[in-house]
């Protein structure tokens, strides 16, 4: 009976995908050589998660960018990069999906000085994975 249930569930969850123009990988964001490091902080994991690396915020040509350096983290579904006002995801700017890219642009309307943390958060299951408390450089 368990096997039957498993087969039925597997069938229902079956799906497939094929990349298209907008999902085939875009040009990676880069930090300009003359960019100045404004804030940085090392990631600390939450319970049951392993993480390594740091978040660094650079300013260049009128805009801020977050760079994850030496970064690795436990696998998780739907991980996001947040620039947050606190060490929990209550008031934050969603910078997008955590992916193989290491640089995330911060929208120009954001007052970066008001945000003291970079969070890695699983949005789908509302689970915080890692926190980097930023300090000014």
């Amino acid at each position, binding site marked *: 009976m368990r096997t039957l249930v498993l087969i039925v569930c597997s069938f229902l*969850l079956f799906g497939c*995908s094929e990349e298209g123009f*907008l*999902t085939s990988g875009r040009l990676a964001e880069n930090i300009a050589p003359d960019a100045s490091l404004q804030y940085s902080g090392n990631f600390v994991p939450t319970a049951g998660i392993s993480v390594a690396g740091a978040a660094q915020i650079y300013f260049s040509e009128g805009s801020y960018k977050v760079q994850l350096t030496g970064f690795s983290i436990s696998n998780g579904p*739907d991980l996001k990069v947040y620039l947050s006002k606190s060490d929990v995801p209550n008031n934050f*700017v*969603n910078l997008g999906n955590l992916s193989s890219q290491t640089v995330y642009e911060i*929208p120009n309307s954001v007052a970066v000085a008001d945000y003291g943390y970079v969070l890695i958060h699983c*949005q*789908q299951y509302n689970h915080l994975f890692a926190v980097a408390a930023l300090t000014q450089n």
Partner: protein
Amino acid sequence: MKKLVLVAFLFFGSKTLFAQGCSDAGICSIDKGFDRETDSVRQVIETAVVYSLGEADVKYVSPYVAYTKHFSSKFSFTARVTYSTATGSFGTRSQFGDAFLIGNYRFKPTKQKQWSAMLGFKFPFTASNLKINGYSLPLDYQSSLGTIDVLAGTALKTGNFDWQVAVQIPVVNLNRNSYFSEYSGTNDFPSTNLFERKPDALFRATYSWQLPSRKLTLRPNVLFIYHLGEDTYENIFSKRESIAGSDGLTVNLNAVANYRLTRNQQFEVSVAAPVVVREVRPDGLTRSFVLGVSYQVSF
């Protein structure tokens, strides 16, 4: 009838053509929940494939299979499972969509009148957050809206006319979509991060015209769907925001040709196109053209 259709086209002709599709909402195909079978039929299996065109360059192939069990001459129960493949600039994404469980009750007929009522639920197979290569996809590429909905309605048959009213109310929101237009590389679709959808109300009027051979029945119909409020999403600043223009009316013209192959087998073709649409359609149910074929066997 021809004049009526012509007048409708002239009246609404200036609008861009988009139909509210049926891949998820269920409300478009809600007449399937109203029982038309004779008393002698106990069980019905239906398979169908729907081809449709959506927003931007998105195309859909959406098959479904349905099973109906008649417990008595009055009460029947239908289970339906949908699947959807969406193809466009984001790529191709296929997945099971929703399961519909619908009960139908036919009241005792009176002179030339037959009332029936239906009550059902829609259960999603996904949280509406399917991705390709780690990229979040708009709702137009999702096989389900990720909501558990209640479907309720009533139908009246008078002579050759069928009149249906129904509502589809999301009661549990499991939607975890994470699509942001800002990060997608296109402006074709609005942001729908953590989307919350409002209910729909439906009114459909159908005229049934059986040809002399009695094998072919044509059912032109007009379908009004009113979206009862603006949908919302969580913007990049973690604030919930209404999507202006996402409420309002959609009107579809639909023509159905039903051919009875044998006493127990039917083949049906359905073509639909819209004449009035909502200003903004973030739910991904928008279609500019819908063509469906179905085969039904009863025993």
